[in-house]
């Protein structure tokens, strides 16, 4: 006993959790053997009585920690027909079929954490999803190329809405370029170099990464689209494809010659946005970060604005309409969780945001004309701050089938967590379902 007093309390807790984990592994193996059919050496578990009970009745009579494994076999993948008014509240999984845009481009950090909890990356169709998809369907008309920014209170589901739009567009054979973490364009994590031709700071590695991801999508358009703009950059390395060559050759050239990757990215996006055969979706999460001062510094140690970096500038030119997507849309989503990159005054006013996006700018705050120029013509798509009961029930159903709840599911639990979170999606999932031991 004397030795236990010397140890800190935290290590005792560790011992208990190690024991629990060992027990859980044994029980999981026992349950797996019941699900299989043939007996194996794993059936000699620590709880033979419980295994016998399961074999005979197959009901939930075991401790909540050692329940059956998740059963999401009935969940279908996102497709073009799954997003309609009748399917509001139904959960669909993000398809694992390659090319999988979520794997190629990545997902925002908060979404990645949520995907790690569940057995399958999935999300529930909301009314906002249906409205957004209708808007995207209208964008096939060249006169109407929407430049939409998804807004809403923190935790209302903006990133998930963007992912659903990406999934829908991929299923509908759009060309998709997604930037899930817009902050990585401006947080000084990739090399940069000043170029006197464009009078901006190029980001060659970042451009090459985006080109590589675009190539990985393996879209038929990349071989179908032929180059119309000549690649006439002075002092460019040899090997640039001529007019009439397939687009994929230009992408390969940009990946190979990293020094000109920024110019190649501009040319590739120009080619894709000029053609009308294949719709193009340019999706950017953390959209507000483009309009902030970046963490990069000039050689004089002056902070570099977002519009003086090649990749954010390119995105802002598409956002302001200086470069147009003939068939397709630009879709952004603001993120309110990064204090270094908050929604700026100009974007706040252009999108006519409310107090859930931060303090309203007063008459004395300076407005930058340049940022006002880059934020003109943007259309806000507000996400409802509350989930509907139907939508929340869909999420609850996913958690039940996943056996992810710590306690017994019931209507009382569902309604109490829904009320406590005021319908906020993130609060409902993270604090309501994940963190509760209530029953």
């Amino acid at each position, binding site marked *: 006993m004397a030795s236990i007093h010397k140890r800190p309390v935290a290590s005792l807790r560790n011992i208990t959790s190690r024991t629990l984990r060992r027990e859980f592994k044994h029980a999981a193996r026992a349950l797996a053997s019941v699900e299989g059919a043939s007996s194996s050496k794993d059936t000699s578990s620590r709880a033979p009585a419980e295994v016998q009970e399961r074999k005979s009745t197959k009901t939930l009579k075991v401790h909540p920690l050692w329940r059956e494994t998740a059963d999401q076999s009935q969940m279908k993948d996102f497709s073009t027909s799954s997003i309609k008014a009748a399917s509001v509240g139904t959960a669909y999984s993000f398809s694992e079929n390659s090319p999988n845009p979520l794997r190629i481009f990545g997902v925002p950090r908060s979404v990645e954490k949520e995907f790690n909890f569940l057995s399958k990356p999935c999300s529930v169709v909301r009314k906002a999803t249906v409205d957004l998809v209708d808007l995207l369907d209208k964008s096939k008309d060249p006169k109407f190329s929407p430049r939409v920014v998804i807004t809403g209170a923190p935790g209302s589901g903006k990133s998930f809405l963007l992912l659903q739009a990406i999934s829908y567009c991929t299923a509908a054979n759009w060309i998709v370029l997604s930037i899930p973490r817009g902050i990585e364009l401006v*947080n*000084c*994590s*990739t*090399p*940069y*170099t*000043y170029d*006197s*031709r*464009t*009078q*901006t700071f190029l980001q060659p590695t970042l451009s090459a990464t985006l080109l590589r991801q675009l190539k990985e999508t393996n879209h038929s358009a990349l071989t179908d689209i032929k180059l119309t*703009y000549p690649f*006439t*950059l*002075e002092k460019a390395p040899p090997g640039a494809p001529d007019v009439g060559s397939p687009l994929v050759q230009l992408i390969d050239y940009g990946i190979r010659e990293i020094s000109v990757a920024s*110019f190649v990215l*501009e*040319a590739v996006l*120009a*080619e894709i*946005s*000029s053609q009308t055969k294949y719709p193009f979706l340019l999706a950017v999460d953390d959209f507000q970060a483009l309009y902030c001062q970046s*963490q*990069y*510094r*000039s*050689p*004089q*140690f*002056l902070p570099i604005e977002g*519009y*003086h970096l090649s990749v954010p500038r390119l995105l802002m*030119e598409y956002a*302001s309409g*200086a*470069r*147009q997507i003939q068939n397709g849309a630009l879709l952004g989503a603001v993120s309110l969780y990064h204090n270094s990159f908050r929604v700026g005054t100009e974007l706040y006013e252009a999108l006519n945001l409310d107090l859930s996006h931060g303090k309203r700018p007063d008459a004395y705050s300076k407005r930058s*004309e*340049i940022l006002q*120029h*880059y934020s003109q013509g943007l259309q806000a798509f507000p996400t409802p701050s509350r989930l509907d009961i139907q939508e929340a029930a869909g999420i609850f159903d996913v958690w039940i089938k996943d056996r992810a709840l710590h306690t017994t599911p019931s209507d009382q639990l569902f309604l109490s967590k829904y009320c406590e979170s005021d319908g906020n999606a993130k609060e409902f999932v993270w604090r309501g379902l994940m963190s509760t031991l209530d029953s």
Partner: protein
Amino acid sequence: MVYIMGVALSDTYPAKIALTGIYGINRTLARRICARLQIHENAPLPSLTSQQTTALTAFLSAPANAPMLPKLELAGPSFRPQFCTNLKVREDARQASIAEGKQEVATATTPAKVGLGDQLKSLKVETDLRRYVRENIMHHRLVNTYVGRRHAMGLPVRGQRTSNNGMTAKRLNRVERKN
């Protein structure tokens, strides 16, 4: 392990922190050096190219001899580079701004303002810095000041108490100071 001027810098930190392993560089200076050489400061140190490492070594060996910083011109929204594909610059907005006398949108370029002076010109690191500190102490001793006598006795210099504590001074204070 990246070696700069004979100092092994840790691989586990980003460039702006790892550079503080060099004697004479603190975090602020490290950021300034990264900006000066256009090294992205959050870069993991092993990811630096050999050219960047060479540039760092060359700069730190002789900071005073580094070339003058060029005045960088940065493009405004109405700037149209020569290599350009589908960019449409709004000429009407540009002309209207010129008429109103607003220079920011009107001019094609916005020249960057140079700082008050290159703070890195007088930078000293490693052996140069140690020699400079030792020479300062030696000067105090030669002219027989209080500071010099305290260094010689190995006692605190700046008026601290000696009846208790003062162990750092007793360990480190010398006329020929090593650290």
